[in-house]
């Protein structure tokens, strides 16, 4: 008979307020093989762990059940503690009486009853737990960073600096991301390019970093320490090793009517183009959709003018397959589509623009070379209206329910910079709330109001009409309870941001989860904010949630540290909860092989001892424990029950079912 120890945590009042802990103890003590039961205010504290360890030693406990918070929280903590006391860590089970009991039930009697039932189910299960030994798997000492914005660049640099190889994959022709499009950064007003470009150069020059631009992730397989990734390196049609980046090709290219993505479509670019002056690598790409050579077969001017013979129309996409120990997602963001916000006339009036377009308009490298002018007539606007929360905090289905976080600050920045450069231009900002939590943020916003006389109105814009050469803005002033209308020359919409469209595809490939808004989910909102729930996959930057540059850089560094934690090890302990096949019963139908998502099961002709104790030769399933991830698909496909899963065996689950019903 087992000697089971049961420990019930109060979690302060989190559990104890809804669960009568003493009654749970009393009930489980009545179970014959429960040798010890005790409660503690905080089981996860040192005192609680000591209590458990002492009980294991003193009472010779062979199994332990901890009734506490979710196993997702502290299962590892308690298992480690049990191991330190000499018990195999897999002989411990958690009864989740907090998240799945005390926090969802209000009545104490009901809560107590359920806690007892959950404890009994865990006890029933733990009786059939068997000691498991974690195996070892090798770690590939190379990291993959997906996304070449400031988040990806910083993560890659940090990993490379620590001495590990890292590949940086960027979808666009150049690294740099959103930050390379910005003019200045708040709250210090540094020039964005001035602080970003050196980093771009650093990462490109670093011997440990390989950059794949104009490339996308095609396929991911494997697991932490041993990911195998296919990268599709799209054909640039330009030989990167020969190109000097002189730019003659783009000057001479006759196809110059393609909206320039880098300038948010405010101007046009040629079909062969270098994204921007500081692009890394400074190698153009041919946009085959708009290239005359590719579309009509006639042209080939770039090839003729290229002094270094770098143009190659025959280049094809290349698939690079590489193994990685860890992967960092840094896929960034884009602004939301504003077609549902007809009242702003965005897309109808050229003078209604998004704030990202405004960044390009004020950027010295932008379409107007930094001169603030209207896209309609090139005149300098005399009155600019900024509208915040366009599509943010919106539950109507038109926008996003979350706060995009960065808009208040960049709006203050844009308003302030406008007033500084063009003192004769009036600036009005419509806001719902001005949110400035951050170092120097509120001071920055107040400066905009106090020193630069930016006119902040709490209210929203309800309708914009084009009237002659200016815009008529109907708005509200919520504080004065009035309905106002004013004339403006330009309206800037602080558009909500959303994760990059690629996030969902990548989430599926990496089996990393995403939330309802397509932001990647962290393993724990507070304690594991840069880890995805999938081991070995980490999150950096806005792909996890809205962030400004400093926050992004901090998270990028944090993600790098987590990667280093893996790469610095030679081997990782594998999950011992893998499938195992009872060869005596296995009939060799190999249904298991068919359903295994990891190719971890194969049929082998073996001499086995049959149920009558005789040797015989037949096909049986063999599980490769290094490849098995423990999903259990095979156990159900197996008709005779020969295939079982460690840690979630047929007997364990059935015992739980029996205990509950």
């Amino acid at each position, binding site marked *: 008979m087992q000697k089971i120890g049961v420990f019930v945590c109060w979690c302060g009042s989190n559990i104890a307020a809804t669960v009568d802990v003493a009654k749970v103890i009393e009930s489980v003590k009545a179970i014959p093989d429960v040798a010890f039961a005790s409660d503690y205010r905080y089981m996860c504290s040192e005192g609680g762990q000591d209590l458990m360890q002492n009980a294991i030693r003193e009472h010779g406990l062979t199994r332990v059940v901890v009734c506490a918070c979710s196993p997702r929280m502290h299962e590892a903590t308690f298992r480690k503690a049990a191991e330190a006391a000499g018990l195999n860590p897999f002989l411990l089970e958690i009864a989740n009486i907090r998240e799945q009991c005390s926090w969802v039930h209000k009545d104490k009697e009901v809560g107590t009853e359920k806690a007892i039932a959950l404890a009994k189910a865990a006890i029933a299960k733990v009786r059939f737990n068997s000691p498991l030994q974690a195996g070892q798997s090798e770690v590939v000492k190379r990291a993959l960073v997906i996304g070449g914005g400031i988040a990806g660049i910083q993560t890659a640099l940090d990993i490379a600096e620590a001495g590990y190889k890292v590949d940086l994959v960027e979808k666009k022709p150049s690294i740099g991301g959103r930050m390379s499009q910005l003019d200045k950064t708040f709250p210090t007003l540094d020039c964005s390019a001035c602080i970003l470009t050196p980093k771009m150069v650093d990462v490109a020059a670093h011997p440990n970093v390989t950059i794949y631009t104009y490339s996308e992730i095609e396929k991911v397989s494997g697991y932490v320490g041993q990911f195998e990734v296919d990268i599709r390196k799209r054909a640039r049609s330009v030989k990167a090793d020969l190109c000097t980046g002189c730019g003659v090709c783009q000057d001479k290219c006759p196809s110059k009517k393609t909206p320039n993505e880098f300038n948010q479509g405010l101007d046009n670019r040629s079909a062969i183009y270098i994204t921007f002056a500081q692009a890394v690598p400074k190698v153009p790409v041919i946009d085959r959709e708009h290239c005359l050579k590719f579309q009509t077969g006639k042209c080939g001017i770039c090839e003729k003018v290229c002094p270094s013979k770098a143009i190659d129309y025959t280049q094809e996409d290349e698939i690079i397959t590489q193994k990685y120990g860890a992967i960092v997602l840094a896929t960034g963001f884009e602004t939301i589509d504003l077609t549902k916000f007809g009242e702003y006339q965005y897309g109808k009036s050229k003078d209604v623009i998004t704030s990202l377009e405004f960044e390009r308009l004020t950027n010295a490298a932008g379409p107007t070379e930094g001169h603030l002018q209207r896209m309609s007539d090139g005149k300098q606007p005399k009155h600019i209206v900024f509208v915040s929360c366009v599509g943010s*905090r919106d539950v109507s289905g038109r926008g996003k329910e979350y706060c995009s976080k960065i808009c208040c600050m960049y709006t203050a920045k844009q308003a302030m910079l406008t007033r500084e450069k063009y003192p004769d231009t009036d600036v009005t900002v419509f806001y719902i709330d001005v949110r400035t939590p951050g170092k120097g943020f509120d001071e920055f916003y107040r400066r905009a109001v106090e020193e630069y006389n930016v006119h902040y109105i709490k209210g929203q814009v*309800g*309708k914009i009409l084009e009237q002659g050469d200016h815009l008529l803005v109907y708005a509200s002033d919520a504080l004065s309870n009035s309905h106002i209308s004013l004339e403006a020359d330009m309206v800037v919409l602080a558009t909500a941001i959303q994760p990059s469209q690629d996030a969902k595809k990548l989430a599926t490939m990496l089996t990393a989860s995403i939330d309802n808004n397509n932001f990647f989910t962290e393993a724990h909102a507070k304690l594991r904010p840069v880890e995805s729930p999938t081991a070995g996959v980490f999150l950096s930057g806005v792909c996890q949630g809205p962030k400004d540059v400093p926050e992004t850089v901090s998270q990028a560094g944090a993600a790098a540290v987590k990667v280093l934690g893996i790469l610095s090890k030679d081997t990782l302990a594998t999950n011992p909860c893998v499938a195992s096949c009872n060869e005596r019963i296995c009939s060799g139908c190999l249904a298991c092989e068919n359903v295994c998502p990891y190719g971890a099961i194969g049929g082998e002709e073996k001499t086995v001892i049959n149920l009558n104790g005789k040797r015989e030769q037949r096909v049986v399933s063999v599980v490769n424990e290094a490849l098995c991830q423990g999903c259990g698909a095979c156990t159900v496909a197996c008709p005779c029950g020969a295939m079982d899963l460690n840690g979630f065996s047929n007997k364990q689950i059935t015992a739980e079912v029996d205990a509950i019903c």
Partner: protein
Amino acid sequence: MQVNEKEQAAEIVRRSGTDISKCMQCGKCTAACPAGYKMDIQPHRVVWELINEHVDVLQKAVTPWKCLSCFACAERCPRGVSPAALIESVRLSIIRQQGENCITVEEIPAYIDEKMPQQAIVAAFRKYNK
């Protein structure tokens, strides 16, 4: 029977079927309101007054009689609140309490001119023909 303002406010909100706790006083409704310039209490302020259970001031205001029931406020509200429904509910509270109306249905044709939107005419007949 005189009921207190608190209960009255709760009744008005209940009847409107809108969740005023969702309102974040952004003023989008007011900005979108085509009749806002004639109102003494702007749509967002109507919500605010109801949150604070000020029914008296709403019943004495001209706002309930100026709302066109075009529902632009509800359409534009980022939080799914309907000030129009609240205003309608306030108006009903006045009518039901006092048996009064701002104008009678017979008086409406005199107000109609060519510029008046169809919706406003229909809304006016609907509102005053109780």
